[in-house]
């Protein structure tokens, strides 16, 4: 269990509590500046909250040695930065750093899970955006973490790659890992998360199964955009009401699988 207790962080988080369970995909959603990335970084132990604490299996994250924490929690930042032109395999191998071993078996497994075997000797600079996103996720999987925390892992990916990557994350969740994703795309959260945590100005606005947490009334209140869901559960699309949206000064219609 990864548990946030009353997290406060000046200007970013205002009393966030949430207990996250392994085996689930939890999506953290909210408008820009709602505190999603800050919450994720607190959960990953990268950002110390001003007050409150994060507990991993009932131990405060701050009391766990950095290396042990790194073995338990894999974190995928949004930036996708790769400073040096390593080969795919060497990049994935960085995921083994917290374990201090070669971890060849885990690296092979991570490469296989994301269909990267044929790319394993390629320099990262020669990959497409979708391939690189898979490699960076494989880096996290190679560490065999109990928790996978990813900040916008699906942004900048086309539809096919989004679905493929979320399929891999679901497999990890089914294998027992807790998966926590910051997602901008509400339709992806609706269709693929087991649970959605909606943040609004640093507070939890909703927390529950996607169908209730992403209720159109709540979307209108938090995002300021009147919208409705189309389609069947598991294949929903979000349609914003254009006229009302422009009156509210918000974005235009959006929809996605």
């Amino acid at each position, binding site marked *: 269990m990864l548990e946030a207790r009353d997290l406060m962080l000046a200007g970013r988080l205002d009393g966030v509590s949430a207990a996250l369970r392994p085996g689930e995909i939890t999506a953290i959603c909210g408008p820009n500046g709602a505190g999603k990335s800050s919450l994720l*970084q607190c959960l*990953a*132990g*990268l950002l110390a909250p001003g007050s409150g604490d994060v507990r991993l299996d009932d131990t405060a994250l701050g009391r766990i040695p*950095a*290396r*042990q*924490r*790194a*073995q338990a*929690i*894999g*974190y*995928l*930042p949004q*930036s996708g*930065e*790769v*400073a*040096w*032109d*390593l*080969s795919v395999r*060497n*990049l994935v191998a*960085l*995921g083994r*750093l*917290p374990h201090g071993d070669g971890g060849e078996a885990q690296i092979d497994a991570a490469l296989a899970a994301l269909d990267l075997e044929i790319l394993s000797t390629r320099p990262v600079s020669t990959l497409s955006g979708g391939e690189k996103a898979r490699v*960076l996720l494989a*880096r996290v999987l190679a*560490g065999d973490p109990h928790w996978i925390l990813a900040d916008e892992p699906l942004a900048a990916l086309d539809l096919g790659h989004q679905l493929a990557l979320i399929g891999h994350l679901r497999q990890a969740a089914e294998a027992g890992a807790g998966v926590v994703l910051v997602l901008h795309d509400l339709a992806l959260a609706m269709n693929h998360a087991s649970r959605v945590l909606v943040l609004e100005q640093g507070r939890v606005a909703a927390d529950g199964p996607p169908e209730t947490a992403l209720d159109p009334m709540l979307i209108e209140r938090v995002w300021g955009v009147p919208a409705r869901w189309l389609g069947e559960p598991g294949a929903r699309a979000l349609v914003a009401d254009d006229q009302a949206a422009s009156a509210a000064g918000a974005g235009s219609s959006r929809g996605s699988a």
Partner: protein
Amino acid sequence: MTRPIPLLLISLAVAIPLSLLAGRVWLDPWTTPNAAVILGELRLPRALLAVTIGGGLGAAGAAMQGYLRNPLADPGLFGIAPGAALGAVVSLLLGYAASAWLLPLFALAGAGGAMLLLALIAGRAGGIALFTLAGMMIASLAGALTSLAISLAPNAFATSEIVVWLMGALTDRGWPDVWLAAPLTLAGIVLLRLAGRGLDALTLGEAAARSLGISPGRLQALLVVGVGLTVGSGVAVAGVIGFVGLMVPHLVRPLTDRRPSALIVPSALAGALLVLVADCLCRILPLVTELRLGIALSLIGAPFFLHLLLKMRREAV
């Protein structure tokens, strides 16, 4: 990957004996009078010093580039070399240069002062941007104080002594310099190699590195002390020698798998080779006075730097 290491070791094994024979006067160990004295007291320590200084600068450059995730980073950026130079200049100004130990000790104190200042300004958070800016501030402060010291020199002779020393050279160095610089440089290289894991993790950015269990404060401490020992002791015995730390990692990187940790030892060996060869060239070239090593390396380094910039510009288009 250790491919370049045997290659560089073999090159050094060939270059060191050759460098002992090379000079304005080429040495024949069997016929030259006093060959044993010239070899043992002049050329061997000089060759070992070249290897030491080059090794330190190469390793420091590789570690700095890994730490700053920037191929244009140079050990001078932390302000440690300028700090050491300031220490040495102060000792020259005070007239302590006659002693074999005082000038290097002042230089080491200058390097230590720069390291301490860096640590104080950057604090415990370990942020890289703040750290780099602190280093640049220290470098420019040390540079200004060095200029001030030169302007305060009591006479033209003292001024010229300081200016010539700043140019960096291995002329007239002996065993005491080797005994001072070699252990410190070796210790520094070991520390930089220990930073390798952290540097590898930084490939993915600061946040990802911390999520991999790397402590930014520890990494920064290893870097500062490692660069301080290698660069500080180099400046202490040979003056300021630029461009080695910038050039060498570039030349070596394509031979490695490009992990920062895999670059440190090969860069040390290649730096040793480069400074050794450059110092031989300085001795051989038929100029009126011997070309200063620091000037020679800058003459090679500046066009190299330009080449790098042009290459980056082409890639950016």
